[in-house]
């Protein structure tokens, strides 16, 4: 049993709650949207209080074996690449910790040779002492490999399906293991089996009809809540941003659509986290933060070494899987100061500025909301009750 079977039988497998969700996605006039936003805001305060959690992404590597039309890291994009050493990852994490972050999402392109399970374990272990909450957004793994990540101290996994539309997915993922739609779709269930506590799912909006993507995402969430009941869930609705390869959105997903989607999820899934990234502008983020959002990134960089400049001395190209050093023939890249980002961010404010803006809105920015000892052996030795 997996969500693959359920997805392929939608809408016949729709539950009552999905039917209600679908009605919330129907076109709404201004007054109706205002009403939804008010309800969404009230429900969010009821469940999450006057708080917003803050986190930062930390990019480990921009190497990738996949070709995904919308992604700056696609293997055929001639970009400046690097994989940070574990020491460099620690330096980046310490920089983020000094800014306040106690919740970090480690992100990497999918490339087993550069970003192996062993490497990821070392990165997690190395930062876990001072970063209580470590999440992972990397290429899919099997359950035993995911278990190694949990044992190393990782409690969250983020895996976006990108598109739930099989035909759009096939057109956009032209090379690499990511072509396998079902393998990716089953990821959250494999991660749950490995013991991950927080699972983040989502779709990249702008690739297929947004309502249809949202319905599938909601069905996925409802399925996971029922079958993988001990995990806490968050959803995210990233929109296409400018990136290497210059991909343009295929479908429209406007600010109003985005707001309606946040409200629809909140009204249908009151206790599910909704994550908002720096892909969105300052004005949009300030407006939507109190209306359903529970977690925000701030001051993000989407390139490895982006926070401290670490790794800039080993930038290179990767052509057909082989590292190619920068030389005269690649001079056009040499003026760059760092690795190429996955996409450009829109909200350029510092973490402190974002926190201060939340405070002004009456929301408490929460930096620490997890204690690493929950999943780890205590220093005093055995914790077994037996």
């Amino acid at each position: 049993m997996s969500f693959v079977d359920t997805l392929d039988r939608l809408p016949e497998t729709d539950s009552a709650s999905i039917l209600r969700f679908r009605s919330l996605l129907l076109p709404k006039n201004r007054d109706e949207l205002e009403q939804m936003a008010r309800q969404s805001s009230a429900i969010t305060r009821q469940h999450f209080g006057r708080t917003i959690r803050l986190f930062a992404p930390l990019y480990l590597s921009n190497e990738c074996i996949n070709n995904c039309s919308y992604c700056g890291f696609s293997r055929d994009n001639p970009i400046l690449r690097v994989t940070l050493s574990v020491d460099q990852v620690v330096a980046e994490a310490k920089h983020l910790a000094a800014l306040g972050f106690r919740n970090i999402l480690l992100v990497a392109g999918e490339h087993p040779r550069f970003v192996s399970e062993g490497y990821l374990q070392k990165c997690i272990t190395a930062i876990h002492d001072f970063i209580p909450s470590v999440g992972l957004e990397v290429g899919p793994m099997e359950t035993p490999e995911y278990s190694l990540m949990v044992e190393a101290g990782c409690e969250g996994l983020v895996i976006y399906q990108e598109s739930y539309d099989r035909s759009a997915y096939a057109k956009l993922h032209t090379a690499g293991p990511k072509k396998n739609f079902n393998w990716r779709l089953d990821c959250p269930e494999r991660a749950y089996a490995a013991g991950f506590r927080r699972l983040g799912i989502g779709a990249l909006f702008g690739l297929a009809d947004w309502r249809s993507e949202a319905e599938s995402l909601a069905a996925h969430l409802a399925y996971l809540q029922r079958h993988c009941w001990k995990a806490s869930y968050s959803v995210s609705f990233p929109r296409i941003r400018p990136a290497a390869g210059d991909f343009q959105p295929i479908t429209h997903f406007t600010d109003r659509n985005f707001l309606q989607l946040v409200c629809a999820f909140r009204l249908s899934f009151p206790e599910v986290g909704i994550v908002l990234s720096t892909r969105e502008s300052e004005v949009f983020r300030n407006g939507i933060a109190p209306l359903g959002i529970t977690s925000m990134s701030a001051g993000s960089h989407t390139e490895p070494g982006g926070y401290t400049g670490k790794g800039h001395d080993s930038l290179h190209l990767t052509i057909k899987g082989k590292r190619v050093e920068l030389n005269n023939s690649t001079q056009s890249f040499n003026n760059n100061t760092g690795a190429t980002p996955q996409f450009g961010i829109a909200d350029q404010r510092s973490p402190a500025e974002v926190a201060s803006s939340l405070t002004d809105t009456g929301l408490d920015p929460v930096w620490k909301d997890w204690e690493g000892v929950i999943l780890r052996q205590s220093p005093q030795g055995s914790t077994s009750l037996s």
Partner: protein
Amino acid sequence: MNELIEYVSHPLTIAGRKFNSRLFVGTGKFASNEIMSDALAASETEIVTVALRRADLSGKGDSFANILDFIDPQKYLLLANTSGANTADEAVRLARLARSAGLPNWIKLEIHPDPRHLLPDPIETLKAAEALVKEEFVVLPYINADPVLAKRLQDTGVATVMPLGAPIGSNQGLVTKHQIEIIIEQATVPVIVDAGIGAPSHAAEAMEMGADAVLVNTAIAIAENPQKMANAFRLAVIAGHEALMSVIPETKAAACATSPLTTFVYPDSQ
């Protein structure tokens, strides 16, 4: 002042320690630590719960996780809660961490593996309670309103039982009222109604039923004016308890006529 004097005459005793207030207050969900601190003061609570996962337990004075700096340990007993733990093992680890960080050994034992409804796991809670009592913690377990579980926990030596009125943060009031009544009737330790109390009237109702105390968080934290709401809960808890102590007249199914129908058989009194 009269209300206070009367109130103090019935202090709450938990694990040999006396408390004048019967209102526990939780510290999550507030818009800022300052607002939380003002609400605690207005509530006149003496027991304050804090989620360990929100606090800095490293002793390094982390300014990004400084919630404990806003809770005066001279004024309030800090009741560390194990929220975030999914299993008995995890809860015990958190409790040990709290003790090693110098916090009181009073633990609000909270194990809810279901993040949707935050309903407590009875099996893991019982296991953890047994282990923590053996390690000489003062254990206040959060439980569903299950009278048998409450008795099993009392057998392990817990200091109180804390049955839920309704799911955490739901503000639904005493949905489990009849089960709580059984728990109170059978209790050998104080019964503190926790979770679901969304309005002062719910708190008063719990106290009138004979609960020894109530715990409130969301209803205060997300109120437009948390300080005023904290005061309202303070008054409601006092009112409910005072009413209980005054023996509330029984409710009757039918109206009681003020012009009696039977006076004709008492000719002398006419």
